[in-house]
């Protein structure tokens, strides 16, 4: 029997165990992950890790009550005892009038699409091949006299899961991934040893770049950090690199859920149909991207996947609504969790946007910081470069950007044409006007 069918059988058996132990309804998920990580430092083997991991989780609905459980101890007698305890525990909770197993009507219409997430060739990659790739990355990353050390990793995973419910849901999912990661530390003036990294990869071995590209990328990105100084304090135009822009979108969309809204902790409350960003921003949640990094045919509740507009020309269209908080907030379930986020593109690349802006700060990455999902207030550490004469200028860091997320996105003045494809948030370069920066 293929592995994935065995997982499905395990999930179905767990549902039966829950029912036998007294649950009215149950949902079970069984998973398996094979993972290999191969790391070299300065071209020499540093660490090899290999594992096959497994897990089982169940959600129990009993007498109007609910609980969720997971275990890696799958020996039959232990599993049976685990589930019996879990059902007993559920019955000791307080009844919740809003708690129901997801409606089977939501399972219907599952798209018949091949998302193309599994590479059978992954299993054929040898340790010798991984070592060769790492050595090539290290060699390219180390090709500079300021290099103190390089570290390179090949990481790959082969994941599969199966879910079943007592009200008729079954579904399986499989996914492979392989990534090159390389990092470089450099000797700067004094004690400073700036470092940076690069990574590329995908679901398929055939999508991997030449490993030297990743090594060179890490070296270039580290060299760009040499001689960093603290930039000025003031209101600035910021051009946010596509690799850094995902953090801002994540903060904006984080509270866009029925859960946050119903719990009174979201600045999205009452904003459907209202603008939350400038008209430059359109975001669609798209679970059906072929080879996407968060693609799926159904979500964690079995809801059949479909595109969900989140923002259209800056106007809030939808939030993430699961069954439970949908009941509480009197909203129809959409999907409980994000998938891929696709941003409608502008017509300029980074170079053209920098030229258009003329002066300001080009943000290449964030350091720490946080935001308040209730109010939208944020403050993030940043590093990057001054924009001087429409071009990338002096290296700066040790600065913060501070403000309110809605106000920030209302000041979004341009969206690039260069989405970052190695993430589930396919965000291009973003330009914001009048952002409060604190530095020297």
């Amino acid at each position: 029997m293929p592995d994935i069918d065995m997982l499905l059988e395990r999930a179905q058996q767990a549902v039966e165990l829950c029912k036998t132990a007294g649950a009215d309804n149950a949902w079970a998920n069984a998973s398996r992950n094979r993972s290999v990580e191969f790391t070299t430092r300065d071209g020499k083997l540093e660490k090899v890790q290999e594992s096959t991991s497994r897990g089982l989780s169940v959600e129990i609905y009993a007498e109007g009550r609910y609980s969720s459980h997971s275990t890696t101890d799958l020996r039959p007698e232990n599993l049976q005892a685990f589930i019996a305890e879990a059902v007993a525990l559920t019955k000791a909770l307080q009844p919740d009038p809003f708690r129901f197993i997801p409606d089977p009507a939501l399972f219907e219409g599952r798209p018949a699409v091949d998302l193309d997430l599994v590479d059978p060739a992954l299993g054929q990659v040898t340790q010798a091949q991984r070592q060769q790739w790492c050595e090539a990355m290290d060699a390219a990353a180390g090709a500079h006299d300021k290099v103190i050390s390089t570290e390179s990793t090949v990481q790959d995973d082969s994941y599969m899961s199966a879910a079943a419910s007592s009200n008729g849901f079954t579904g399986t999912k499989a996914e492979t991934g392989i990534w090159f990661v390389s990092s470089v530390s450099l000797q700067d003036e004094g004690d400073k040893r700036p470092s940076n990294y690069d990574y590329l990869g995908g679901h398929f071995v055939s999508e991997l770049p030449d490993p030297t590209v990743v090594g060179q990328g890490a070296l270039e990105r580290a060299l760009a950090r040499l001689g960093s100084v603290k930039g000025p304090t003031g209101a600035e135009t910021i051009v946010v690199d596509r690799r850094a822009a995902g953090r801002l979108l994540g903060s904006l969309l984080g509270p866009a859920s029925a859960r946050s809204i119903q719990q009174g902790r979201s600045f999205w409350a009452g904003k459907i149909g209202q603008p939350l960003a400038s008209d430059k921003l359109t975001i669609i949640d798209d679970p059906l991207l072929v080879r996407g990094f968060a693609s799926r045919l159904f979500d964690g509740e079995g809801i059949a996947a479909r595109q969900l507009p989140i923002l259209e020309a800056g106007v809030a269209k939808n939030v993430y609504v699961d069954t439970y908080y949908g009941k509480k907030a009197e909203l129809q379930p959409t999907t409980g969790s994000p998938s891929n986020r696709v941003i409608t593109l502008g017509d300029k690349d980074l170079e053209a946007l920098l030229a258009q802006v003329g002066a300001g700060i080009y943000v290449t990455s964030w350091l720490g910081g946080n935001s308040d999902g209730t109010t939208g207030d944020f403050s993030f550490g940043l590093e990057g470069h001054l924009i001087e004469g429409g071009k990338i200028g002096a290296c700066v860091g040790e600065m913060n950007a501070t403000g309110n997320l809605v106000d920030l996105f209302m000041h979004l003045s341009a969206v690039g044409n260069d989405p970052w494809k190695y993430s589930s948030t396919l965000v291009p370069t973003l330009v914001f006007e009048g952002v409060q920066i604190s530095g020297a």
Partner: protein
Amino acid sequence: MRPPTRREFIGASAAGVCMMSMPSFLAGCAKTAPIESAVTPANPFLTWFGVDEAVIRSVLSELTARGADQAELYFQHSRSSSLTLEDGIVSNASSSVDLGVGLRCVVGDQTGYAFTEDLTLESMLQAARTASSIAQAGGGPAIEAFRYKEHKGLYTLVQPLSDVGVAAKLPLIEKIAAQAQAADPAVEKVRVLWSDYEEHVLIADMTGAMHMDVRPMTRVWCTVTARKGEETQSNSSNLAGRRGFDFYDQEQIDLLVKQAVDRTMILFEARRPPAGEQPVVLAAGASGILLHEAIGHGMEADFNRKGISIFADMVGKKVSSEHVTIVDSGVEPSERGALNVDDEGVPTQYTKLVENGIMKGYLHDGISARHYGVEPTGNGRRESFRFAPVPRMRCTFMENGPHTAEEIIATVKNGIVAETFTNGQVKIGAGDFTFYVKNGWLIEDGKKTAPIKDTNIIGNGPDVLSKITMVANDFRLDTGGWTCGKDGQGVPVSQGLPTTLVSSITVGGEDA
């Protein structure tokens, strides 16, 4: 995908990173059935994992068959449970059980690692062959006799968490929620999360040493949402530690609720401080996050052995004021960062990083200690059996200095007091670090005036250490549930500080 150069310090209120959603009604089912073996296990830990000396001997022998400088089996069984109150009812519970063994073979500074959740001899031998594949030649030492050491003392509970049922926890959770709801008419929603966690660890190393530890952890977390007119604010507080259920008495509940409500209500009055460089007074307690980021990570010896930390050449040098003594201690009883023994089997200790302003030494695991030719400091830690240990902090704090909090604030013309925090981060090589201030105060003319909120602070480690000019005598450890992330592994830590003045650092504010 985890970028390799970022070290994140994740606070209790950062979303999605609470690896500690762990509690405990699963007492009975947690015990694993023994697998077949020739010898009856004598030790309760062996029984727990269903192994015996013959099995361990055989797996260790396979693990070291091609040579090893260090090798061990890390058996772990953990059990966790949580209960959540929302909208007035305890309507959600969760639990989990995790069982497995991690196998590590170290040659020089090279590591082979494998783990399995299937504790059969066959499966463990297979994992041992994988982990030992990095070794080239030679064999391991034959173990003559196993030496058992059960490590105790820092967090032995009167009542094991597995004996505390849901019936005992429900009234506690309801009491906290009711008190928070009644604390202010503006309070609209209250969420209370209880979690408890208990793990059994058995470390069997290649020399025949068998280290055993039972590690509890509890946390209670109260989140408040309040509304005044059109404005909504929310904030939270939590208490955590390697403490039993009995710790959470009325006094602790009062403290938790007061913190959660006060920290929320003050946000209605709070504003942003002015942007830019200014003096920052770090209030006693959770401000120890400064040490964790500014120096702690940079002193973890793996970064220094590799030459990539900004502190790599600073041992023996003066790095701060003579008032500054910074410690990483594994021996603070009942604290979240307490450990009887680290995850390599080394008893923990009180390790000085900086003494009277002079940099003393690093935080070591076995690999780095051999590299430097020193004794390990008991800082080899891991998230679980799925990870190889690396040098990590435990409880990181500064000892008391000669000043008082009042005199420190009085010296500041214009600046801020930083009081509560959510998270921080550091770049080990460049030395830049940040921490996020959730609540604090403006200082004007030597006095605390208006409340402030949501401000990121960013500085450079050695630079900020050199700008610590005053240290008060009011040290305390924070009892919030901090989790530190490094190399994709989260481990529980604690931090503390007496009131401390940093003469200048960049504050993320508005209206400069």
